[in-house]
C-alpha cells in the first residue's frame, strides 16, 4: 500500500533579524490510508508548524512533502489553495465554523467550493451529520450549537469532500473531557472507515487512545514514534510517562521543559505554536 503522506527531512527555519530558529528539524514520516496519527509534544516543539506545512499554509525551508503524489513545494499559491480544498480536510482549535452558515451549510461549503454540491452530496452531508449525532441540528447556526457540536460539524466539513489527508489542530482544546473523548472517538472511527490519513495535533495525551501511532516531537525533531498498541494505551493512561512527566494519570500532558529540552530554540519557534 502506498502512503498518502510522505515527508522527507522537512525543516522549517524562522528568521527574525539575526536570530534563526529551527522550528521543525529534519522530520521524515509516512502515513498510510486509514491511519490516524497523533502528533504530540510540548509547546514549541514544532507540531503545529509541521501541521501548517502539511496543509500547504506554510512553506518548508528544506525537504519535501508529498501528499497523494503531489509535491507541495512545487505548487503555486493558487494551486495550493485548490489542493487544500480538494485534498485536505482541516479542523482547528476553535472558531472553526463560518458564523452565518448553518451546520449543514458549513458542511456544504466544502462541496460548493469544489463545485460538487449535487443532491447526492447534499444527502451525504446530511447523512454524515446524522452519523455525528447532529440530525436535529442541521439548520442551527454555530452560535446555537455547543462547543462539542461545533467541533463535530467541523469534522463533517473536514471529511465531506473526500479528502486524502485530514488535519486536526487541537480539536479538543475548547471542549470538556467527556465531549473531547466523544469527538476524537468519532473522528477516529470515520478516518478508519473512510480510509483517510489523519493527523491530530494534541496536548491531551488521553486522546491518543484512539490513534494508531503517536509521534512525539521535541525541539522540532521527532523524539519518538510509538507504534505499539500497549505502549500507546499506557501513554494514554499516563502510566508509562509518569516518571518523566509532571502530570498524573488522566491529566493533560505537559512535559517538564528543562527535562526534555536540551535546546531552548524550540520555544522561540512557537511563533504560531
Amino acid at each position, binding site marked *: 500500500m502506498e502512503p498518502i503522506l510522505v515527508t522527507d527531512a522537512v525543516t522549517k527555519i524562522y528568521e527574525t533579524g539575526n536570530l534563526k530558529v529551527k522550528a521543525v528539524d529534519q522530520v521524515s514520516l509516512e502515513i498510510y490510508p486509514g491511519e490516524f496519527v497523533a502528533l504530540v509534544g510540548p509547546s514549541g516543539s514544532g507540531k503545529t508548524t509541521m*501541521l*501548517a506545512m502539511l496543509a500547504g499554509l506554510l512553506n518548508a525551508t528544506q525537504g519535501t512533502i508529498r501528499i497523494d503524489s503531489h509535491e507541495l513545494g512545487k505548487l503555486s499559491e493558487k494551486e495550493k*489553495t485548490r489542493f*487544500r480544498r*480538494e485534498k485536505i480536510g482541516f479542523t482547528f482549535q476553535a*472558531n472553526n465554523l*463560518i458564523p452565518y452558515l448553518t451546520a449543514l451549510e458549513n458542511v456544504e461549503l466544502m462541496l*460548493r467550493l469544489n463545485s460538487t454540491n449535487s443532491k447526492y452530496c447534499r444527502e451525504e452531508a446530511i447523512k454524515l451529520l446524522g452519523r455525528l449525532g447532529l440530525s436535529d441540528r442541521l439548520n442551527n447556526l454555530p452560535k446555537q450549537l455547543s462547543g462539542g457540536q461545533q467541533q463535530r460539524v467541523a469534522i463533517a466539513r473536514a471529511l465531506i469532500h473526500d479528502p486524502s489527508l485530514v488535519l486536526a489542530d487541537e480539536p479538543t482544546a475548547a471542549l470538556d473531557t467527556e465531549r473531547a473523548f466523544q469527538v476524537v472517538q468519532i473522528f477516529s472511527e470515520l478516518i478508519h472507515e473512510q480510509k483517510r490519513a489523519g493527523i491530530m495535533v494534541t496536548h491531551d495525551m488521553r486522546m491518543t487512545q484512539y490513534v494508531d501511532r503517536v509521534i512525539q516531537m521535541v525541539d522540532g525533531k521527532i523524539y519518538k514514534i510509538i507504534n505499539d498498541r500497549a505502549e500507546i494505551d499506557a501513554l494514554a493512561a499516563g502510566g508509562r510517562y509518569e516518571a518523566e512527566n509532571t502530570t498524573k494519570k488522566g491529566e493533560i500532558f505537559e512535559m517538564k521543559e528543562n527535562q526534555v529540552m536540551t535546546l531552548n530554540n524550540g520555544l522561540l519557534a512557537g511563533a504560531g505554536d
Partner: protein
Amino acid sequence: MAFYLASREIWRNKGRFFLFSLVIALITILVLFIAALAQGLAQANKEYIEKLNAELIVFQEKVELSTTTSRVGLDKLNNLRRIPGVADVGAIGFSSASLEFSNQQNSLDVALIGVQPGKPGMPPVFSGNSIRSNRGYQAVIDGAIASRNGVRVGDKITIKTIVGSEDKFYQLDVVGITDGRQYFYQPSIFVPFETWDKIRPQAAEGQGQSNLVANVLAVKLTNPQDLKIMAATIESQVSGVEVVDRKTAYESSPGYSAQQSTLNTQQGFTLLIGILVIGGFFQIQTLQKVPQIGVLKAIGTGNLIVAYTVILQIILVTIIGVAIGSISTILLTLALPGGIPIMLTGNTTILTIFTLLMIGPLGGLVSVRLALKVEPLTALGM
C-alpha cells in the same frame, strides 16, 4: 460562490446590514437634497432668463452685467433691428413690487417685468391671452402665482409699488398665465413695457426720462448658432453696450456662482463623508471577521472569492441604501409645500445617484485589501 457567501451573511445579519443601509439612505437623502436645493435655487434665480425666447442679451457696458444697474435706451432698438442677422429685439425692464390680496392674505413679493407685446422677452401664455396693448393695465402672471395663490385669468390683482416714500396701488387685469418664470427668487408678473415704466418703483413721481429706458434688450437671432459673432457685431455697431448669451447673463447675476459653488462643495464633502463612513464600517467589519476569513482561506477558498464577497456585500448594502434614500427623497419632495426651492431634475438626480452608488465600492476598497491580506495561519492563531 461569492454571491452565496455575501448574501447568506447579509441575510443572517439582517439587522446590522439594514441599519447600515439606513445610514447610506440618510447620506443619500442629504446629498440629493443639497443637489435639489442647488438646482432649485439656481432655477429660482435664472428661470426667466434661461427660458427667454432670445439668444443674446444686451446690457449697458461696464455694469458687470447687472440687470438692475444696466440702462439701455429704447432708442437703440431701431439700430439693433437694422443689424443683419438680428431677427427681433425686445426691451425688458425689471423691478420689484408686491402683490396684495384682499382677503388679508400676506402680500407676495414679485418681480414686475416690463415687456413689449410680441417681442422677445414676452413669455408664452399657456392659459388666457397674451398682452396686446403697449400701455394697458394688463398682466400675464407666473404659473406659480396662479397655482399657489389661486389667481385665475380674468381676475383683477392689486400691485403695490413704492414711489418716493408713498405706497402706490395699481389694479391689473390678469389676461394670461405663463409657466414658471421666476426672476431673482421671485415669481413674475409681466406688464406692457410702457405701463411698467409708469408703475415701477421710482425715487420720485414723474422722474422717468423723456426717452424710455429698459434694463436690458433681448435679441433673437435669425441663426441662433451665430452667438459669438453676432454678439461681437452688435457690440461694434451699437455704442455703449455689452452683449452676452443667456447663460453668461444668469451666471453673472449677484451671488449665483458663489451660491452654486458653496452648494457643490457641500455636496462634495457629503459624498466624501459617505465614502469614509462606508469605508470605516466595512473596515471594522472586516477586522472583526479576520478569523473566519482565515478559516475560509485555510479550507481552500481563493482570494478572488474572498474579495468578491466583500465587494458584493458593499454593493448590495449600497444599492439598498441608495434606493431607500432616493425613494424617501422623492416622497419628501412631493410632500413639501410649494415655494421651497427644491427641484429634482432627471439628469442631476441620475448623476447624483450614480455617484452615490460609486462611493460604496470606493469606500470598501480598503476592506477588500484588508481581507486579501488575511494570513490564515495568523488569523487562526496557529
